[in-house]
């Protein structure tokens, strides 16, 4: 019993260190009826790092994020999140893992019967004991962070696509999860709005130490997130600057095709890659 206890505390301590594996996919397989979506997928997300998943639509990107969150169960393989085997947890046990996971759904999935405030504060209002005025303050803070403070009392239907996407990010970050999963957070946005969303992703990673998985098929955004970092200027203002080479290596690309990973490596390796499929994807 004491041995188990030290083992467990050791595991916790390891997971708190930088570079610890926070999400691990080990030979994951999934099929819907006879349609194989993930054939054999393995990867590891390290703490504070960024994994950028590329792939044509239908290649299983959203499905992978849903497996991490436990919304779907893999047919085979092992999935670890924060040291827990999520492939073996039931819905009840999964709730504890989800407390540290923020998922930004592909279409936002905002609750359309609730206001922006209620959406962003949903988890805190409904599923926590936090005092109301503290929740209000937190909601205002994160909405300020994504630049939507003045829209707090609107309904989601009254917002533009880009604003809805940023509300979805605010909702996922409001309860301070340490892992954020972005499902095509910039798809369908104009380039300027897309850059502001990319900047949010970078700021959360570099200031809050969030580990991120960024699903996209927009290379511009993928490279922007991989090759930039957020720093504070002399007067404390936020600046997005070119990443240092070490920082750049903390972002890793991963390309899915026909249920397997056909490329894995950093931005530099992706640029130099000569595989015809990947080249056609890049151009």
């Amino acid at each position, binding site marked *: 019993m004491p041995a188990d206890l030290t083992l467990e505390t050791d595991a916790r301590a390891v997971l708190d260190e930088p570079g610890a594996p926070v999400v691990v996919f080990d030979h994951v397989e999934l099929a819907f009826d006879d349609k194989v979506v993930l054939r054999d997928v393995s990867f590891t997300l390290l703490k504070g790092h960024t994994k950028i998943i590329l792939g044509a639509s239908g290649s299983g990107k959203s499905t992978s994020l849903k497996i991490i969150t*436990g*919304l779907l169960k893999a047919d085979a393989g092992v999935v670890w999140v924060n040291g827990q085997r999520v492939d073996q947890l039931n*819905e009840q046990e999964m709730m504890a893992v989800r407390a540290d996971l923020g998922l930004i759904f592909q279409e936002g999935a905002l*609750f359309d019967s609730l206001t922006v405030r209620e959406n962003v504060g949903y988890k805190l209002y*409904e599923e926590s004991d936090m005092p109301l005025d503290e929740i209000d303050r937190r909601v205002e803070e994160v909405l300020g962070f994504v630049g939507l403070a003045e829209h707090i009392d609107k309904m989601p239907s009254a917002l533009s696509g880009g604003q809805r996407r940023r509300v979805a990010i605010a909702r996922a970050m409001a309860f301070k999860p340490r892992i954020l999963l972005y499902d095509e957070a910039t798809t369908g946005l104009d380039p300027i709005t897309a850059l502001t969303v990319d900047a949010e992703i970078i700021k959360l990673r570099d200031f809050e130490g969030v580990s991120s998985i960024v699903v996209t098929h927009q290379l511009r955004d993928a490279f922007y997130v991989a090759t930039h970092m957020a720093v504070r200027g002399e007067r404390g203002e936020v600046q997005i600057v070119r990443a240092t080479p070490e920082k750049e290596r903390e972002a890793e690309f991963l390309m899915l095709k026909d249920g397997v990973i056909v490329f894995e490596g950093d931005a530099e390796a992706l640029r130099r890659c000569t595989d015809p499929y990947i080249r056609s994807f890049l151009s």
Partner: protein
Amino acid sequence: MPSFVESWSKNAALEVQEYIRLTLAAVRGAFSRPLYRHDIIEQLDAVGIGSLTVVLLTGIFTGMAITAQSGLTLDQFGARAVVGRLVGASMIKELGPVLTALMLTGRVGSGIAAELGSMMVTDQINALRALGTDPIRKLVVPRMLAGFIMTPVLTVISDFVGISGGWLVARFQLQVNSGLYWSSVRDGLYMQDVYGMGLVKPFVFGFIIVTVACHVGMRTSGGTAGVGRSTTVAVVAGSVLVIAADFFVNQILVALLY
């Protein structure tokens, strides 16, 4: 052909199994924490107050129609004076519960299926789960409680306005004395199956309407077209099940009471 029958019965069995699973989970959820009180009150209001107008209108016109017709039939036996007895009993035992339930299937069942269905296809149900909420407790339990509590309340209201509508026709068209009408309604109510039928049925119907609608809504797939399909299925399946349940509850109560 056999493979068609086989796949059909397999699907039907799966559907029933999923329905039972959802219903059991919802009943369990109604008796344990966390309860989303705010949502329960909201649903009680939406189902109860929201359906009042339809139920009042259906009730009063039904009561007036059966009174006018019964008057004609009873005249053949010179028994016009006991029209109240017939109206009271048929309103409470049969027409009040069934017509209220059918109206609620159209109004509440379709609404639930459309709302949960569109939450399903836009990933809002998954978003609830990702944010740590059990959708059954948050969405199904409040609707189930609202249907179970409000259907009987609305049925009693419908019975009452139906019998009152009957009085209007009895008094002014059939020229039956008011006192006679009401005392004959009262005589009708002393029959022992009236309360059994009149009060058991609406609980059963209310439960069926909302649980079927929630089940259909939660199994929606295939985008907005899927939401349309679910809405239709909820209304059609709900109505047929209400009428079938009406027959079976009748049989069971008759067997138990006599």
